Protein backbone atom coordinates (compact mmCIF):
# COMPACT_ATOMS: atom_id res chain seq x y z
CA UNK A 1 0.00 0.00 0.00
CA UNK A 2 2.53 2.58 -1.15
CA UNK A 3 2.12 6.30 -1.72
CA UNK A 4 3.52 7.46 -5.04
CA UNK A 5 7.07 8.80 -4.93
CA UNK A 6 5.64 11.83 -6.69
CA UNK A 7 3.43 12.72 -3.73
CA UNK A 8 6.28 12.14 -1.27
CA UNK A 9 8.58 14.41 -3.29
CA UNK A 10 5.80 17.01 -3.42
CA UNK A 11 5.63 17.12 0.37
CA UNK A 12 9.43 17.31 0.57
CA UNK A 13 9.46 20.23 -1.88
CA UNK A 14 6.69 22.06 -0.02
CA UNK A 15 8.38 21.61 3.35
CA UNK A 16 11.65 22.80 1.80
CA UNK A 17 9.98 26.03 0.67
CA UNK A 18 8.32 26.52 4.06
CA UNK A 19 11.65 26.12 5.86
CA UNK A 20 14.12 27.78 3.49
CA UNK A 21 11.96 30.08 1.38
CA UNK A 22 11.12 32.60 4.05
CA UNK A 23 13.26 35.49 2.83
CA UNK A 24 13.59 34.71 -0.85
CA UNK A 25 11.89 32.91 -3.68
CA UNK A 26 13.39 29.52 -4.46
CA UNK A 27 14.15 28.21 -7.94
CA UNK A 28 13.32 24.66 -9.01
CA UNK A 29 17.07 24.06 -9.13
CA UNK A 30 17.46 24.98 -5.46
CA UNK A 31 14.43 22.96 -4.37
CA UNK A 32 15.59 19.96 -6.40
CA UNK A 33 19.12 20.17 -4.99
CA UNK A 34 17.81 20.51 -1.44
CA UNK A 35 15.64 17.42 -1.76
CA UNK A 36 18.00 15.41 -4.05
CA UNK A 37 15.26 14.99 -6.64
CA UNK A 38 15.97 15.56 -10.34
CA UNK A 39 15.10 19.13 -11.41
CA UNK A 40 13.00 17.86 -14.35
CA UNK A 41 10.89 15.69 -12.06
CA UNK A 42 10.54 18.42 -9.43
CA UNK A 43 9.45 20.84 -12.13
CA UNK A 44 6.70 18.46 -13.22
CA UNK A 45 5.54 18.08 -9.61
CA UNK A 46 5.52 21.84 -9.05
CA UNK A 47 3.49 22.33 -12.21
CA UNK A 48 0.77 20.19 -10.62
CA UNK A 49 1.11 21.97 -7.26
CA UNK A 50 0.78 25.31 -9.00
CA UNK A 51 -2.39 24.23 -10.80
CA UNK A 52 -3.78 23.26 -7.40
CA UNK A 53 -2.92 26.72 -6.07
CA UNK A 54 -0.51 25.35 -3.47
CA UNK A 55 2.48 27.27 -4.83
CA UNK A 56 2.77 30.49 -6.81
CA UNK A 57 5.51 31.73 -9.11
CA UNK A 58 7.15 35.06 -9.66
CA UNK A 59 8.95 35.65 -12.93
CA UNK A 60 12.20 37.48 -13.40
CA UNK A 61 15.79 37.38 -12.24
CA UNK A 62 14.83 37.18 -8.57
CA UNK A 63 11.84 35.01 -9.38
CA UNK A 64 10.95 31.55 -8.17
CA UNK A 65 8.42 29.64 -6.12
CA UNK A 66 6.59 30.60 -2.94
CA UNK A 67 3.74 28.95 -1.06
CA UNK A 68 0.39 29.69 -2.68
CA UNK A 69 -1.54 29.92 0.58
CA UNK A 70 -0.74 30.39 4.28
CA UNK A 71 1.29 27.50 5.63
CA UNK A 72 -1.20 26.86 8.44
CA UNK A 73 -3.88 26.20 5.81
CA UNK A 74 -1.88 23.67 3.82
CA UNK A 75 -2.09 20.16 5.26
CA UNK A 76 -0.24 17.00 4.29
CA UNK A 77 -3.59 15.70 3.04
CA UNK A 78 -4.06 18.67 0.70
CA UNK A 79 -0.66 18.11 -0.88
CA UNK A 80 -1.06 14.34 -1.27
CA UNK A 81 -4.53 14.72 -2.80
CA UNK A 82 -3.31 17.41 -5.20
CA UNK A 83 -0.85 14.88 -6.61
CA UNK A 84 -2.60 11.51 -6.25
CA UNK A 85 -6.23 12.56 -6.56
CA UNK A 86 -7.37 10.88 -3.36
CA UNK A 87 -6.02 9.17 -0.29
CA UNK A 88 -7.90 5.89 -0.43
CA UNK A 89 -6.15 2.54 -0.93
CA UNK A 90 -9.29 1.01 -2.50
CA UNK A 91 -11.38 3.17 -4.89
CA UNK A 92 -14.75 2.11 -3.41
CA UNK A 93 -13.85 3.87 -0.15
CA UNK A 94 -14.19 7.19 -1.97
CA UNK A 95 -17.16 6.24 -4.12
CA UNK A 96 -19.17 3.03 -4.30
CA UNK A 97 -19.76 3.56 -8.01
CA UNK A 98 -16.03 3.01 -8.57
CA UNK A 99 -16.72 -0.68 -7.85
CA UNK A 100 -17.90 -2.74 -10.79
CA UNK A 101 -18.75 -5.89 -8.81
CA UNK A 102 -22.23 -7.39 -9.12
CA UNK A 103 -22.35 -7.83 -5.35
CA UNK A 104 -21.13 -4.36 -4.39
CA UNK A 105 -24.35 -3.44 -2.59
CA UNK A 106 -23.76 -6.33 -0.17
CA UNK A 107 -20.02 -5.85 0.04
CA UNK A 108 -18.51 -7.50 3.10
CA UNK A 109 -15.17 -5.70 3.05
CA UNK A 110 -15.86 -2.09 2.08
CA UNK A 111 -16.20 -1.05 5.69
CA UNK A 112 -12.63 -2.20 6.36
CA UNK A 113 -11.29 -0.10 3.47
CA UNK A 114 -13.22 2.91 4.74
CA UNK A 115 -11.72 2.53 8.21
CA UNK A 116 -8.20 2.23 6.79
CA UNK A 117 -8.83 5.30 4.61
CA UNK A 118 -10.02 7.22 7.65
CA UNK A 119 -6.91 6.28 9.61
CA UNK A 120 -4.78 7.67 6.77
CA UNK A 121 -6.83 10.86 6.25
CA UNK A 122 -7.13 11.63 9.96
CA UNK A 123 -3.35 11.83 10.24
CA UNK A 124 -2.74 13.58 6.92
CA UNK A 125 -5.43 16.22 7.45
CA UNK A 126 -4.26 17.08 10.97
CA UNK A 127 -0.69 17.94 10.05
CA UNK A 128 -0.17 21.41 8.57
CA UNK A 129 2.93 22.62 6.80
CA UNK A 130 3.36 25.17 9.60
CA UNK A 131 3.45 22.43 12.26
CA UNK A 132 5.94 20.39 10.25
CA UNK A 133 8.13 23.43 9.61
CA UNK A 134 8.28 24.39 13.28
CA UNK A 135 9.02 20.83 14.31
CA UNK A 136 11.71 20.51 11.64
CA UNK A 137 13.42 23.72 12.72
CA UNK A 138 13.20 22.71 16.38
CA UNK A 139 14.78 19.32 15.66
CA UNK A 140 17.54 21.03 13.68
CA UNK A 141 18.29 23.40 16.55
CA UNK A 142 18.36 20.48 18.96
CA UNK A 143 20.88 18.68 16.77
CA UNK A 144 23.03 21.80 16.48
CA UNK A 145 23.08 22.31 20.23
CA UNK A 146 24.15 18.71 20.71
CA UNK A 147 27.10 19.38 18.45
CA UNK A 148 28.12 22.42 20.49
CA UNK A 149 28.04 20.66 23.86
Amino acid at each position, binding site marked *: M*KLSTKSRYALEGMLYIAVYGKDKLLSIKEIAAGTTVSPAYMEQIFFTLKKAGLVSTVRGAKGGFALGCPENEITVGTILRAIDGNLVPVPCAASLSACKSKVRSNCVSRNVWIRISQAISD*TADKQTLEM*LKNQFIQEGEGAENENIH
Partner: protein
Amino acid sequence: MKISTKGRYGLRAMIDLAINSSEGCTSLADISHRQDLSLNYLESIFSYLKRAGLVVGIAGAQGGYMLAKPADEITLYEIMTVLEGSMSVYDSFGEETKIRSFLNRNVWDVIDKNVNEVLTGTTLADVLKNMETSRLSGDCSGL
Protein backbone atom coordinates in the same frame (compact mmCIF):
# COMPACT_ATOMS: atom_id res chain seq x y z
CA MET B 1 -1.69 4.24 -2.91
CA LYS B 2 -3.38 1.00 -3.79
CA ILE B 3 -4.22 -2.33 -2.24
CA SER B 4 -3.86 -5.04 -4.91
CA THR B 5 -6.71 -7.23 -6.13
CA LYS B 6 -5.08 -10.08 -4.25
CA GLY B 7 -5.46 -8.15 -1.00
CA ARG B 8 -8.96 -6.94 -1.79
CA TYR B 9 -10.36 -10.25 -3.03
CA GLY B 10 -8.51 -12.23 -0.38
CA LEU B 11 -10.03 -10.26 2.48
CA ARG B 12 -13.48 -10.58 0.95
CA ALA B 13 -13.04 -14.34 0.67
CA MET B 14 -11.84 -14.60 4.29
CA ILE B 15 -14.86 -12.64 5.54
CA ASP B 16 -17.16 -14.81 3.41
CA LEU B 17 -15.51 -17.91 4.86
CA ALA B 18 -16.02 -16.59 8.39
CA ILE B 19 -19.70 -15.88 7.69
CA ASN B 20 -20.35 -19.27 6.16
CA SER B 21 -18.13 -21.55 8.21
CA SER B 22 -20.67 -22.40 10.91
CA GLU B 23 -21.59 -25.65 9.14
CA GLY B 24 -18.22 -27.17 8.36
CA CYS B 25 -16.19 -26.20 5.37
CA THR B 26 -16.98 -24.00 2.39
CA SER B 27 -16.05 -24.72 -1.21
CA LEU B 28 -14.23 -22.12 -3.26
CA ALA B 29 -16.95 -22.54 -5.89
CA ASP B 30 -19.51 -21.27 -3.36
CA ILE B 31 -17.32 -18.31 -2.37
CA SER B 32 -16.70 -17.58 -6.05
CA HIS B 33 -20.44 -17.56 -6.69
CA ARG B 34 -21.41 -15.48 -3.64
CA GLN B 35 -18.62 -12.95 -4.04
CA ASP B 36 -18.55 -12.76 -7.83
CA LEU B 37 -14.83 -13.64 -7.91
CA SER B 38 -13.04 -15.91 -10.38
CA LEU B 39 -12.54 -19.46 -9.11
CA ASN B 40 -9.05 -19.65 -10.58
CA TYR B 41 -7.97 -16.53 -8.78
CA LEU B 42 -9.48 -17.70 -5.50
CA GLU B 43 -7.53 -20.96 -5.80
CA SER B 44 -4.29 -19.07 -6.12
CA ILE B 45 -5.15 -16.73 -3.24
CA PHE B 46 -6.10 -19.65 -0.99
CA SER B 47 -2.79 -21.34 -1.60
CA TYR B 48 -1.15 -18.33 0.09
CA LEU B 49 -3.68 -18.27 2.92
CA LYS B 50 -3.21 -22.00 3.50
CA ARG B 51 0.59 -21.78 3.53
CA ALA B 52 0.33 -18.94 6.07
CA GLY B 53 -1.82 -21.12 8.33
CA LEU B 54 -4.93 -18.92 8.14
CA VAL B 55 -7.15 -21.55 6.48
CA VAL B 56 -7.13 -25.34 6.29
CA GLY B 57 -8.18 -27.33 3.25
CA ILE B 58 -10.26 -30.47 3.51
CA ALA B 59 -10.07 -32.94 0.65
CA GLY B 60 -12.94 -35.00 -0.68
CA ALA B 61 -16.37 -34.63 -2.22
CA GLN B 62 -17.68 -32.58 0.73
CA GLY B 63 -14.32 -30.79 1.03
CA GLY B 64 -13.39 -27.16 0.92
CA TYR B 65 -11.80 -24.66 3.26
CA MET B 66 -12.34 -23.52 6.80
CA LEU B 67 -10.66 -20.96 9.04
CA ALA B 68 -7.63 -22.44 10.77
CA LYS B 69 -8.44 -20.56 14.00
CA PRO B 70 -11.59 -19.09 15.54
CA ALA B 71 -12.65 -15.85 13.82
CA ASP B 72 -11.90 -13.83 16.96
CA GLU B 73 -8.26 -14.94 16.84
CA ILE B 74 -7.56 -13.85 13.26
CA THR B 75 -6.72 -10.16 12.92
CA LEU B 76 -6.97 -8.12 9.74
CA TYR B 77 -3.26 -7.45 10.18
CA GLU B 78 -2.43 -11.16 9.73
CA ILE B 79 -4.63 -11.45 6.66
CA MET B 80 -3.41 -8.28 4.97
CA THR B 81 0.28 -8.91 5.56
CA VAL B 82 -0.03 -12.41 4.10
CA LEU B 83 -1.80 -11.01 1.02
CA GLU B 84 -0.02 -7.67 0.58
CA GLY B 85 3.30 -8.03 2.34
CA SER B 86 4.12 -4.82 4.20
CA MET B 87 1.17 -2.47 4.71
CA SER B 88 3.47 0.53 5.14
CA VAL B 89 2.69 3.58 2.98
CA TYR B 90 6.36 4.01 2.06
CA ASP B 91 9.61 2.28 1.16
CA SER B 92 12.95 3.83 1.99
CA PHE B 93 14.48 5.25 -1.15
CA GLY B 94 17.14 7.63 -2.29
CA GLU B 95 19.51 9.55 -0.12
CA GLU B 96 18.41 10.00 3.51
CA THR B 97 18.24 13.79 3.43
CA LYS B 98 17.26 15.64 6.60
CA ILE B 99 13.83 16.42 5.20
CA ARG B 100 13.26 12.85 4.02
CA SER B 101 14.14 11.23 7.31
CA PHE B 102 12.15 13.90 9.17
CA LEU B 103 9.02 13.13 7.09
CA ASN B 104 9.55 9.37 7.47
CA ARG B 105 9.51 9.71 11.25
CA ASN B 106 6.88 12.42 11.65
CA VAL B 107 4.40 11.75 8.86
CA TRP B 108 4.69 8.35 7.17
CA ASP B 109 5.47 6.36 10.32
CA VAL B 110 2.55 8.05 12.09
CA ILE B 111 0.18 7.07 9.27
CA ASP B 112 1.55 3.51 9.36
CA LYS B 113 1.03 3.35 13.11
CA ASN B 114 -2.60 4.47 12.84
CA VAL B 115 -3.35 2.02 10.03
CA ASN B 116 -1.70 -0.79 11.98
CA GLU B 117 -3.81 0.02 15.02
CA VAL B 118 -6.95 -0.53 12.95
CA LEU B 119 -5.58 -3.75 11.46
CA THR B 120 -4.24 -5.32 14.65
CA GLY B 121 -7.23 -4.14 16.67
CA THR B 122 -9.83 -5.71 14.39
CA THR B 123 -10.50 -9.45 14.13
CA LEU B 124 -12.65 -11.27 11.57
CA ALA B 125 -15.22 -11.70 14.35
CA ASP B 126 -15.30 -7.88 14.81
CA VAL B 127 -15.93 -7.43 11.07
CA LEU B 128 -18.88 -9.81 11.27
CA LYS B 129 -20.22 -8.10 14.36
CA ASN B 130 -20.01 -4.67 12.66
CA MET B 131 -21.91 -6.03 9.66
CA GLU B 132 -24.64 -7.32 11.95
CA THR B 133 -24.88 -3.97 13.74
CA SER B 134 -25.16 -1.97 10.53
CA ARG B 135 -27.73 -4.46 9.18
CA LEU B 136 -29.84 -4.05 12.32
CA SER B 137 -29.60 -0.27 12.31
CA GLY B 138 -30.50 -0.40 8.62
CA ASP B 139 -33.63 -2.40 9.47
CA CYS B 140 -34.63 0.05 12.19
CA SER B 141 -34.36 3.02 9.88
CA GLY B 142 -37.34 1.66 7.96
CA LEU B 143 -39.64 1.78 10.98
